[in-house]
C-alpha cells in the first residue's frame, strides 16, 4: 500500500515576471518500504515538490490543485498545527544543503536532544540515550554529541542530519540531494549508511537528486522529472537497462561510466522550457532528437508502457529502436544544430605539431592574425630545449618528443599561524605541504588528469602550472624556461601561451563585463591595438567553442547566459590568445549533467585539433578516464600513481587509487561497486612523512610503510606507482559488469 500518494499536484510561484508553474500535475506513489529516486536537472521542480509535500513553500508559492495523501490522510486539509505534528514524526526531511541545516551556535547533541524532547516527548535521560544510539546508528562517535557543527567534517554533518531525521522513527524520509558537494569517498560512505539503514529499519525513502548514479546505488524505483512533470517512472533495474523516455535516455548516456567507457558522451543540448508559458505539446520536444511534428501539438500523458512502467512519450512504442539510435552522440548533436547553432562539419583532426611552429590554432583559422602576433610566434616558437623524460611515456610511435612542460621535484609550502600576531598568541608556525616533490612532464597535445580527494594538492598544482602561485622548491620548466625566473616580457609571453579554465563559470567572468569585453581583455593586455582584429579573433574563438552565431553573444552579460554557455565562454577566453597549454580545474563539476558532456566534448575536440597540452583537474575519475591520455593520482601533495588512463583505471597499483575507483558511483544498479576499504578524512598535510604518506589510511599497511618511503616503480606502460606492494596486491577489485545487486553487498 502506498504510504504517500500524490495526485495531479500543481504548484505555482508568483514572481514579478509572471506565474511559474513549477510543478504541473504530478502524480506519484511511494509504497511502504520502497525507495524512490526522483531525478531531474535543476529547475525541473523536484525541490518544489518536496516543499509542497511538507508544506514549507515560500510565501510566493501556492498549491493550486491536486491532492497529497499520506497514510490515507489528505495533508492539504490539515491545519497548521496538525501539519506540524505530522512533520518529523511521520515525514522527516533532509533538506538540500543539509550541511547548513545544523544551528552553528548549538552543540549538535543538544540540537538532537532538543528535537527528541520537544517533538518526541523524551525525558532528558532518555533523550541522551537515544541521541547516543542514533549517533551510533549513523556511524558517529558518541563523543561528537558535545561538538559544534563547525567541528564536523561535511560527511559527519551529513551523518548527524541523517541521525536527526531518524530520531523520531518517521514513516517516510525525504532526502534532497543528500550527497551533492561531498567528496567521492564521503559520498560513497553516506550512501552506504543510507543503504544500510534502509535495510535495517525498512525505511521508506524518497530521494531527490540530479545524479542518476546515486539513485542507482540506493533506490529500487525511479521517477524522472522534467519541467514540472514526471516523464518516466519505473523500477530501478529496468529503468537503467532500458529507459523508456528520450530524456531518460539522454541522461543515462550523458554520464561517464567507469565500467563502460565510451568514446563520446551524449550531451542534451538546450534548456528546459520557460515554465511561465509552457509549450502546449511535449515539454521535451525542443531538445528531443526523436521529435516528430505531433510532439509539438500533443501533450503526452504518463501512461503504462510496460510492466509497472510509466512514461510520457508519444513514441514510447518505438523505444526499442530509439534506444539503439540514442547510443550515437552525433544524433544528440543534431538537435543542437537544429535549434541553437550553425555547426560546421568538424575539420579532420590534424596531427599535433611537435617541432616548432607552436600555435596550431593560428595555422588553422588565422587568416587575419595581426603582424605582431605572427612575429611573436616566430620569436617564441623555437625548439624546446628540455630533455626527454622517461616518465612521460611515448605517444608518437617510439619517437621521443621534447615535453612542453616539465615539473621537476616541485613543492609548494604554505605557512600558517606565523607572523607577529601568531608569535604573540604563541601559535606554532605550521607548514602545510600542499604539493610535495612532484615530477611529471606533459607534451604538446597530451592531456593529463589530476585526481584525488579535496585537499590533495591537485588545485595547487594547477595554480603552479599557470604561475598563479610560485613553487617553493623545484623547477617548473615551460618550453625549457623556468617559471620562477620569468619577468616582464618572458612572463607576458608565458601568460599568452598558458591558460586556465575555472570550475565555477558563474564566477569566472567579470559580471560587469560584456562577453566581448571579457574576451577582448586578454588581447588588449597582449598589445592587440587594432580593434577590428580583436573583434575578428573574438568572433572566431566563440565560433570555435560552438557559441554561434558569435555576434549574438558579444554584448551579453554573463548573467544572461546559462552555465553551459558560460563555461564555453570561459573556454573561449582561455583559447582566444591561442595558447599551447591549458589547465582545466574541475571544468564541469558546477554544471548540470545534461550539458557536462557538451563542454567536455568541445574541450577534448579543440585540444585534439589544436595540439593543446591539457591538464584536467577533477575528483571524478570517470570524467578523467573519458578526457585524458594519462591520469595522475595525488595524495597529500604527492603523486602516488601516474600512467596511461586505461592502465590506471583498469590496473590500479596503489591502494589509494583503488579506493578512489571503488568510490565512484556507477549509474547502473546491476554493477556492484567493489568494497571501499578506507575511511573518509584526509589528514592535514602539515608533516612530512618518512614513510608512505598513505600509511595512516591504507588497508594493507605494513610496518615498512611507516618507516620506508616506497619506491616509485614504473612498468613498461610508463605506469608508475609508489607502493611497497606494487604488483603484489591481491587481485585488484575489478568492476563486475552484470553482477546482480545483492542485499548487504558492501560487507
Amino acid at each position: 500500500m502506498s504510504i504517500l500518494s500524490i495526485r495531479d499536484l500543481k504548484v505555482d510561484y508568483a514572481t514579478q515576471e509572471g506565474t511559474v508553474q513549477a510543478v504541473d500535475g504530478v502524480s506519484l506513489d511511494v509504497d511502504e518500504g520502497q525507495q524512490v529516486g526522483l531525478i531531474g536537472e535543476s529547475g525541473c521542480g523536484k525541490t518544489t515538490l518536496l516543499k509542497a509535500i511538507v508544506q514549507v513553500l515560500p510565501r510566493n508559492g501556492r498549491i493550486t490543485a491536486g491532492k497529497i495523501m499520506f497514510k490515507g490522510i489528505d495533508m492539504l486539509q490539515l491545519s497548521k498545527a496538525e501539519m506540524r505534528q505530522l512533520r518529523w514524526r511521520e515525514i522527516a526531511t533532509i533538506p538540500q544543503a543539509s550541511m547548513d541545516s545544523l544551528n552553528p551556535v548549538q552543540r549538535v547533541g543538544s540540537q538532537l536532544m532538543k528535537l527528541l524532547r520537544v517533538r518526541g516527548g523524551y525525558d532528558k535521560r532518555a533523550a541522551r540515550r537515544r541521541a547516543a544510539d542514533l549517533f551510533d546508528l549513523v556511524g558517529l562517535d558518541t563523543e561528537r554529541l558535545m561538538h559544534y557543527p563547525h567541528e564536523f567534517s561535511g560527511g559527519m554533518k551529513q551523518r548527524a542530519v541523517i541521525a536527526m531525521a531518524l530520531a523520531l522513527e518517521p514513516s517516510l524520509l525525504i532526502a534532497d540531494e543528500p550527497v551533492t558537494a561531498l567528496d567521492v569517498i564521503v559520498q560513497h560512505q553516506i550512501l552506504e549508511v543510507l543503504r544500510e539503514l534502509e535495510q535495517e529499519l525498512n525505511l521508506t525513502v524518497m530521494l531527490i537528486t540530479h545524479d542518476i548514479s546515486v539513485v542507482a546505488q540506493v533506490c529500487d524505483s525511479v521517477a524522472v522529472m522534467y519541467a514540472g512533470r514526471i516523464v518516466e517512472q519505473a523500477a530501478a533495474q529496468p529503468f537503467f537497462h532500458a529507459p523508456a523516455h528520450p530524456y531518460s535516455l539522454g541522461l543515462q548516456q550523458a554520464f561517464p561510466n567507469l565500467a563502460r567507457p565510451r568514446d563520446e558522451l551524449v550531451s542534451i543540448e538546450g534548456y528546459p522550457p520557460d515554465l511561465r508559458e509552457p509549450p502546449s505539446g511535449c515539454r521535451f520536444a525542443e531538445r528531443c532528437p526523436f521529435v516528430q511534428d505531433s510532439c509539438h501539438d500533443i501533450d503526452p500523458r504518463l501512461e503504462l508502457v510496460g510492466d509497472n512502467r510509466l512514461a510520457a512519450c508519444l513514441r514510447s512504442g518505438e523505444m526499442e529502436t530509439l534506444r539503439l539510435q540514442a547510443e550515437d552522440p552525433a544524433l544528440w548533436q543534431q538537435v543542437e544544430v537544429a535549434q541553437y547553432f550553425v555547426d560546421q562539419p568538424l575539420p579532420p583532426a590534424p596531427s599535433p605539431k611537435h617541432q616548432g611552429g607552436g600555435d596550431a590554432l593560428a595555422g588553422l583559422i588565422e587568416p587575419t592574425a595581426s603582424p605582431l602576433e605572427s612575429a611573436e610566434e616566430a620569436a617564441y616558437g623555437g625548439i624546446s630545449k628540455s630533455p626527454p623524460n622517461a616518465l612521460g611515456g611515448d605517444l608518437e610511435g617510439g619517437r621521443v618528443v621534447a615535453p612542453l612542460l616539465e615539473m621537476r621535484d616541485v613543492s609548494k609550502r604554505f605557512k600558517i599561524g606565523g607572523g607577529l600576531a601568531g608569535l604573540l598568541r604563541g601559535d606554532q608556525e605550521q607548514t602545510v605541504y600542499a604539493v610535495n616533490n612532484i615530477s611529471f612532464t606533459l607534451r604538446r597535445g597530451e592531456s593529463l588528469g589530476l585526481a584525488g580527494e579535496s585537499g590533495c594538492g591537485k588545485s595547487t598544482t594547477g595554480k603552479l602550472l599557470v604561475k598563479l602561485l610560485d613553487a617553493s622548491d623545484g623547477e617548473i620548466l615551460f618550453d625549457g624556461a623556468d617559471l620562477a625566473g620569468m619577468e616582464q616580457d618572458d612572463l607576458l609571453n608565458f601568460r599568452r601561451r598558458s591558460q586556465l579554465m575555472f570550475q565555477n563559470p558563474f564566477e569566472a567572468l567579470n559580471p560587469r563585463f560584456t562577453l566581448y569585453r571579457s574576451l577582448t581583455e586578454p588581447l588588449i593586455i597582449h598589445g592587440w591595438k587594432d580593434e577590428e582584429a580583436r573583434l575578428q579573433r573574438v568572433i572566431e574563438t566563440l565560433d570555435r567553442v560552438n557559441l554561434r552565431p558569435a555576434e549574438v553573444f558579444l554584448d551579453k552579460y554573463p548573467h544572461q547566459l546559462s552555465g553551459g554557455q558560460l563555461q564555453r565562454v570561459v573556454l573561449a577566453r582561455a583559447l582566444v590568445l591561442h595558447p599551447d597549454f591549458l589547465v582545466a580545474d574541475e571544468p564541469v563539476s558546477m554544471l548540470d549533467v545534461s550539458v557536462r558532456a557538451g563542454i567536455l566534448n568541445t574541450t577534448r575536440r579543440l585540444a585534439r585539433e589544436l595540439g593543446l597540452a591539457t591538464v584536467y583537474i577533477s575528483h571524478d575519475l570517470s570524467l578523467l578516464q573519458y578526457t585524458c591520455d594519462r591520469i595522475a593520482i595525488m595524495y597529500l601533495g604527492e603523486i602516488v600513481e601516474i600512467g596511461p588512463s586505461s592502465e590506471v583505471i583498469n590496473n590500479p597499483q596503489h591502494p589509494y587509487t583503488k579506493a578512489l575507483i571503488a568510490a565512484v558511483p556507477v549509474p547502473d544498479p546491476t554493477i556492484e561497486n567493489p568494497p571501499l576499504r578506507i575511511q573518509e578524512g584526509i589528514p592535514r598535510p602539515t608533516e612530512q612523512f618518512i614513510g608512505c604518506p598513505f600509511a595512516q589510511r591504507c588497508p594493507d599497511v605494513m610496518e615498512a610503510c611507516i618507516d620506508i618511503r616506497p619506491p616509485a616503480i614504473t612498468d613498461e606502460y610508463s605506469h608508475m606507482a609508489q607502493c611497497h606492494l606494487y604488483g603484489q596486491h591481491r587481485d585488484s577489485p575489478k568492476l563486475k559488469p552484470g553482477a546482480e545487486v545483492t542485499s548487504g553487498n558492501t560487507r
Partner: protein
Amino acid sequence: MNRGIAYYILGRFLQSLMVLWIIVTLLFLLFRLAPSNPLASYIDTTFTKEQEAALLARFGLDKPLGEQYIIYLLNLARFELGDTFSYSGKSVLDILSADLPNTIYLTLSSLLVAYAVGVLGGIAMAALRGSLFERVGTTFTLMTRAAPTFWVGMLLLSFFAFQWKLLPSAGIGPAVVRYRWETEWDKLMSPVFWRHMILPTFTLALYLHGLPLLLMRSNMLEVLDQDYVTMSRLAGYSEWRVMIHTAARNAMLPVLTALTLGIGYSIGGNVVIENVFSWPGLGRTLVRAVQQADYPLAQGAFFLIALIIVFMNFIADILYSLLDPRVGASAQAQVS
C-alpha cells in the same frame, strides 16, 4: 576555555594595547598643536615671567618634547593624568573619576532601553515584514536616527520640563539631595537620581534604538532564510519556537556585539546630550576643558574615553568569539 581561545584573547589584548599606545601618542602630538598658551587659564591681575616659568615647570612643559613624551607615557602607565589647569587642588583623575560613573549610568541605562526596544522591535518587524506596521515603524526609527539628538532633547525638555513641569530639566539631582550621597550606591538608591535620568535616557534611547532595531530586523530576515531555520520548521517546531529559540537567538549575536561596541562609542558620543541636560559626565567636562583651554583635563578625558572604547572593542571581539563557536575556532587560523 580551550587553549586556542585563551591565546586568541591574549593576542587581542596585546593588539589592543598597541592600538592604545598609538592613540596615546597621537593624542600627545595633537595637544602640542593647541593654538593657545597652555597657561591661558591661569591669568589674573599679576603675572610675572618668573611665575610663568614656574608654572611651565610645574606642568613639565619646559622639558624637551621627547622627554615630555616619555614622562607622559610613564604617567599614563601609572594612570597618572596630572593636574588640571583650571580646577584648583584637583587632579585630572579626581575630576574624571567623579564624572565617569555618571556617564556610565546614562550610557548603560539608555543602551539597555534602546536595545530592549530595538531587539523586540526588530523581531516584530521581521515577523511582520511587508506590513504597514513595519513600514511605519521603520520610517519612525529612521526619523529618530536622522533627527539631531540635541534638538530632540531640547524639544523634550521644553515640553516635559518647562511646559508641563513633569520632569526635572538638568543635572543629576538638586544639591541638597546630592550632598548626602556619600557613595555611588547612595546615588543609585535615590529616586531623585532616577527621575533626573529619565529625560536624557529617553532622548538617547530614542536615538540609539535604531541601530539594534534595524540590525535585529535584517539579521532576523537573514537568519530566517538559513537552512537550519528551515530545518526547524521541517522538524515541526512551533512558529514561536522557530522565531524566538532558533532565529532570534542566532540573530542576537551581532546585536550583542553591537551593544558592547555601543557602550564604548556612547561614552564618547554622549557629549552633546550631556551638555543639553547639564549631565555631569565626561562629555560635559571635555567640552568645558576644551573651552577653558584646560589641556591636561581635555587630554585626560579624551584618553579615558579612548581607553573605554578600545577596551569595549576588545570585549566585543572576545564576546563574539565566545558566543559564536565558529569565530572562536577560526580565531587561531585568523592570522591578523
